[in-house]
């Protein structure tokens, strides 16, 4: 790609101070992202979520972030002030979190929290905000948007809640969407519906997507390119189409550990974790 990438991450490091010394959650991650779908895969603790959070600016205050460069559309995110980060967050960079049970505000109706997100960034009348919210709810295939608008998060199912979350995140038309395990908390049958809604909207609206998950198969079926992380480092980066020819044993392990219908493997191959991969 010759044009400047949407997002540049070069040697990103996130460090948490603890009583027993510093813990490096992310240790030198580099990648660039255009208007494409990038998957970040790894186990719990591999630093995949912290990478997403650092880009979004949601790293806890006591943690230390360093990078040669962390830039979004030419804006240096590390030197940007709180106010500027705030203006970006939600408007140009948005994030879908894992579980709608915890990520939606329990004491606000779904409609009101989507309007709040919208009016935070755009000076528009309430009536206009309501109209846009309703059409956004329709875009995430909620059949009866008027009814759902007035419901509280506990009154809707997980799949419906996650659709509302997607609606809230996309309403300002972000250029970069970070989805952190967006369907892990949902039922299998609902997962597919939510993924296809997300897929369609990302394609229609032309945004960059970072899809974070521990499920390598899911990520590879959804993204163009996959980064595999282990112990805070990128161990392999490859196009989704070439997944079968993955070279790193860790990537192969992630691929093989899932039980499949019709394959008789007892016991299941388990993942090897070698300290030298983290070196």
């Amino acid at each position, binding site marked *: 790609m010759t044009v400047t990438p949407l997002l540049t991450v070069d040697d990103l490091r996130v460090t948490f101070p603890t009583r027993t010394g510093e813990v490096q959650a992310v240790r030198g991650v580099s990648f660039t992202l255009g208007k494409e779908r990038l998957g970040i895969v790894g*186990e*719990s*603790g591999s630093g995949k979520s912290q990478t997403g959070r650092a880009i979004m600016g949601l790293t806890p205050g006591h943690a230390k972030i360093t990078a040669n460069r962390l830039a979004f559309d030419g804006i240096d995110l590390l030197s940007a002030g709180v106010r500027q980060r705030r203006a970006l967050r939600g408007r140009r960079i948005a994030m879908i979190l894992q579980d709608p049970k915890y990520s939606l505000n329990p004491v606000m109706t779904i409609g009101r929290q989507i309007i709040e997100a919208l009016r935070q960034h755009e000076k528009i009348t309430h009536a206009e905000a309501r109209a846009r919210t309703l059409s956004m709810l329709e875009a995430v295939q909620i059949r009866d948007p008027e009814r759902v608008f007035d419901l509280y998060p506990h009154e809707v*199912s*997980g799949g419906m809640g996650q659709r509302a979350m997607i609606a809230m995140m996309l309403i300002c038309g972000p250029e970069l969407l970070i989805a952190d395990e967006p369907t892990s908390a949902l*039922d*299998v*049958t*609902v*997962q*597919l519906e939510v*993924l*296809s809604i997300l*897929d369609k909207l990302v394609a229609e609206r032309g945004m960059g997507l970072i899809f974070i998950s*521990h*499920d*390598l*198969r*899911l990520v590879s*079926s*959804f993204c163009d390119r996959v980064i595999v992380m282990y112990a805070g480092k990128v161990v392999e980066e490859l196009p989704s189409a070439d997944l079968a020819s993955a070279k790193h044993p860790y990537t192969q*392990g*992630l691929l093989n*550990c*899932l*039980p*499949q*219908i*019709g394959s008789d*493997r*007892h*016991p*299941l*191959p*388990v*993942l090897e974790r070698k300290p030298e991969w983290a070196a």
Partner: protein
Amino acid sequence: MSQALSVRNMVVTFEDFTALKRVSVDVGQGESFGIVGESGSGKSTLLRAIAGLVGFDEGSLTVSGRNYSGRKRDKEFYRTVQMVFQDPYGSLHPRQTVDRLLLEPLLIHGFSDIDVRIARALDEVGLGNGFRFRYSHQLSGGQRQRIAIARALILEPKILLLDEPTSALDASIQAEILNLLEQARRDRNLTFVMVSHDLGVVSHMCERLAVMKGGEVVETMPVEALEKRAFSADYTHRLLVASEGFRRG
């Protein structure tokens, strides 16, 4: 094959809502039986009704030749049947050490040589004695689920009820826990009743399965039928498509 567990026309209601509508299931001695379905299909309720965590209003439950009703279960029942729950973050007491967690069932059932049993239980689930005096917050999700399995196995039950034992875990940790459960079943000749929404997991672990939807068993079949696509219910087909992953277009 003699029946380890038999459920006949079980009805469970919560106020006005009927969660189980005359469900019948038979599980043979030493068999591994799977129950699949989406959220709200009643699969977890069935397991909880068997375990006595919710009462059932109608129908009968027979475990190892003894009949049970409502939600009353005697000590003998819990010597025979133990349960592993979905969320290892919620099922372990946060202020008890692993040692205390494993001690409690042994005290309740009046076991002797407690020390040896705890050490052996930890060893069996692949955790050393070093884990014995830790609290659950000092353990990872996979380690917690191992402790939950150790707690269930320490009473040497015959039947293990597994309610989505790996769905809160990473794919890579899931493989380890599934292998551990299979090993335990082989070694102790256990009967499994396993609830999951993942057909891949059920087909790996079980010999027969029931598909549930809306509080009813839609169909019961051997796992081979799943591989050959030899099932009749449309719903089973939908679950199967879902388990194959996302496809564009």
